[in-house]
């Protein structure tokens, strides 16, 4: 809550004010014609009681700040504390000094004492209120900044994901190789890469697109990967016209296929076939993505990596359901199935 160093500074100031108060009151009482000793006892006791009241109200406000409607409560608190201080003087001072004239003076000055206490405690309450609400505001601001920072980081991460530096630089490297001895293919690959990147940048996450469009975009990506990995990578895509017209959130398949390719190519050493199959089942578009994997070295649970979790999260946010994606791993084949409700 409050920053420790500034709190201790505040207490320091409070103690200093207490001493000042005691000295001032001693001087005033003395000027009414009482002995210095009598006056200083009065001054000290009043100052101690008042400091106690101030400390109490300050501490109260530190942990609890009244809303707009409850300032009346604060007022009552201040009145009560001022009253207690005045009463303290009334009943404690006669115990310390039995001089009749002095006791009489104390009783007569009770109203003035009460009002002065009220002003002092009220002043303290106002100061504390300002001080702590300002601290609170700072804290809120800091939290807000942190949340904004977090959001920015997430956005940046998404952007970087979209650019896929590993894929991009490796593709450029392949083009670099092709330029030397197959310039036509190099040129074709540059166009594929450009089309793919443009498509990625254009996509709006919230938009629904027909499966055929999504697959056309995926094909650009797959063609580039095929150039990179040569004969090792094959793809099978099946989807009839009815299925191609079905809608799905844009860029939903991309992470699934990336995942399939990554696992297929980096988890096995042989040839890899990645298959994508679309079907209409009742009111769902069902899409199945399969890739080979090696159960000896990768645990099935590793299959639901970051990319897949992202897809699941998106499906949940869009359709408020957690059962739209499932994964199976058997016979060296890893399968991911997603169901997209057709509205």
């Amino acid at each position, binding site marked *: 809550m409050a920053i420790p160093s500034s709190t201790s500074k505040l207490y320091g100031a409070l103690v200093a004010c207490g001493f000042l108060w005691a000295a001032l009151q001693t001087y005033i009482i003395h000027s009414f014609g009482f002995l210095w000793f009598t006056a200083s006892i009065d001054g000290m006791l009043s100052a101690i009681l008042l400091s106690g009241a101030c400390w109490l109200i300050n501490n109260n406000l530190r942990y609890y700040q009244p809303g707009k409607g409850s300032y009346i409560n604060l007022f009552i608190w201040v009145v009560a504390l001022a009253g207690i201080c005045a009463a303290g003087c009334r009943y404690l001072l006669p115990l310390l000094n039995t001089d009749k004239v002095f006791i009489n003076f104390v009783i007569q000055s009770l109203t003035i004492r009460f009002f002065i206490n009220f002003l002092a405690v009220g002043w303290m309450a106002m100061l504390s209120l300002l001080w702590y609400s300002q601290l609170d505001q700072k804290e809120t601001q800091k939290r807000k900044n942190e949340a904004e920072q977090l959001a920015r980081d997430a956005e940046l991460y998404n952007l970087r994901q979209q650019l896929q530096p590993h894929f991009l630089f490796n593709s450029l490297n392949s083009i670099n*190789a092709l330029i030397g001895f197959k310039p036509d293919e190099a040129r074709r690959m540059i166009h594929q890469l450009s089309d793919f990147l443009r498509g990625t940048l254009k996509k709006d996450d919230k938009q629904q697109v027909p499966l055929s469009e999504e697959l056309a975009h995926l094909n650009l990506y797959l063609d580039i990967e095929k150039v990179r990995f*040569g004969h090792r990578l094959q793809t099978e895509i099946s989807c009839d016209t009815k299925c191609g017209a079905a809608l799905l959130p844009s860029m939903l398949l991309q992470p699934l296929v990336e995942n399939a390719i990554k696992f297929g190519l*980096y988890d096995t050493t042989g040839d890899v076939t990645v298959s994508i199959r679309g079907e209409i089942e009742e009111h769902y578009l069902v899409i199945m993505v399969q890739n080979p994997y090696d159960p*000896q070295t990768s645990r099935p649970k590793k299959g639901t990596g970051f990319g897949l979790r992202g897809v699941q999260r998106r499906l949940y946010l869009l359709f408020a359901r957690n059962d739209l994606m499932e994964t199976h791993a058997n016979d060296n084949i890893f399968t991911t199935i997603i169901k997209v409700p057709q509205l």
Partner: protein
Amino acid sequence: MRRALIIDDEPLARMVVMEYLQNFKEIELIQECNDGFEGLKAIQQYQPDLIFLDVQMPKINGFEMLELVENPPAVIFTTAFDEYAIKAFEAHAVDYLMKPFSKERFNKAVEKFLAAAPEKQAQKHTEDLLEAVAAHSPAQHERIVVKTGTKVKIIPVADVDYLMADDDYVSVITKEGSYLKNKTMSFFEQTLDPRQFVRVHRSYIIAIQQITRIDPYEKDAHLAILKSGAKIPVSKTGYVKLKQVLGI
């Protein structure tokens, strides 16, 4: 004549290196390899002077392959994008090429290799590099790559029961058997996930998941009983660490 190998899983990437290498008459390209396994075999067979090594490859990455080579030759790494690797390269002054790289940059790297005195220092650099990579790269926390005879075995860390010091080696004990790895105990202590593995004794690191119970044993010492039935000595300080991780 110096002899070189290219190890990269992308055919076109190998072709770039091959093409650039033609300028150097003093270097003979002896083989191209598709992955780490082929690379390992070729290195043992030909004992090349220089390898061009990709980092991201199927099954075992370039670093893991290098860990299994006994006297690693000079290495020029080639990689497209890998934050961990690049940090490690820079920290250990090992030459690396960022794909796509120019002919000039390539020539510089090869000329540096040709000018260097053979090869004690490069080896030391490579060893330091591998330690640094193992400590930071996520792949190396998930599996341990060992050599059994001529075969390479990839052990997911989830399969490991415990590790035991064995002279200059460390035995990695799994349900299927035990495998020797040419590393130190402190290497594994640093690279394995400390929430899953605890060094309970100078000579033992155990997988927390595998513990069934811990019995007192002699003065100040304990015995950890694993699911496999193995009894692992736990030293006084090891017991403190174990209690911390288990939260008891």
